[in-house]
């Protein structure tokens, strides 16, 4: 079975490394890291990952705007938002751009893995 591919868009090497260590032990492959939204958009078009894990607070265009641009270019993009800001208002902003999930930083590993699993299953069902 082919591994589900992930791309991480986060200016923090801490988050990127933690995510890589966690997900690669659990059947995913991280195929790209972008340190900001602009790089994330370029990389997405080049790599076409199955799932994008996107931080919200980043230099330049933030994660919400980046996700919105990606979804306009590719409405089938699967994006999971991460943020240290996880209040109801931020969740509303995430929903307003058509996404459903916002994982708080610092995340619980089992929550992140369960959400990725759900997104992977939904992608499979949609094929």
């Amino acid at each position: 079975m082919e591994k589900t591919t992930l791309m991480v868009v986060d200016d923090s090497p801490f988050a990127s490394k933690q995510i890589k260590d966690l997900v690669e032990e659990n059947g995913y492959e991280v195929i790209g890291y972008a340190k900001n939204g602009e790089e994330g958009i370029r990389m997405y078009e080049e790599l076409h990952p199955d799932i994008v894990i996107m931080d919200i607070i980043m230099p330049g265009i933030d994660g919400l705007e980046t996700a919105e641009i990606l979804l306009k270019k590719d409405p089938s993009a699967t994006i999971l938002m991460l943020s240290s800001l996880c209040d109801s208002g931020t969740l509303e902003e995430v929903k307003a751009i058509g996404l459903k999930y916002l994982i708080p930083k610092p995340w619980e590993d089992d929550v992140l893995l369960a959400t990725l699993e759900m997104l992977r299953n939904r992608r499979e069902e949609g094929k």
Partner: protein
Amino acid sequence: MLNMDVKEIFDTSFCEVTKKLVKLELKKVCDEEGKEEDKADLLNKGYREAIETHGYINSIVICQFSDDLFRYIINAMNNGVTPSKEEVPLYLNEYINIACGHAVSRMNNLAGQASRLSIPSFYQEEEPLEDKWGVHSGRWLSYHTEIGRLHIFIKYSLQSENEEVG
């Protein structure tokens, strides 16, 4: 005004996040310990990290780390390995971003209003922040740990108050 103790919320968030991220217990030192001028001097030297919030809560938060604690945190966040010189600020940025994001999320939920975080800034030279940020007075949280000391300066105002608290 909502019954919200901003300083206590930051205190809880820094303690919880520090424990979760770097497995370190922050033990609060008496709030008013030390002379004001000594505390203000902490803003001007050593390893510091600053972040602002805007919206319902407008604030400036500055962390000042003792040398030992600074090294411990960046190494612990990088699986025990010292990060490259270029990456060091990114680790501390993430630390303060997560701790303050935790606090601001709680305040946003309590108030039912929105506040946002700025991109954090890292300082290590003798660059005076007291004047840069206009922080002449504010509130302090001081902690000791088994590794070293952490001082947190907070100056804030809540949108409904239209006045600075410090």
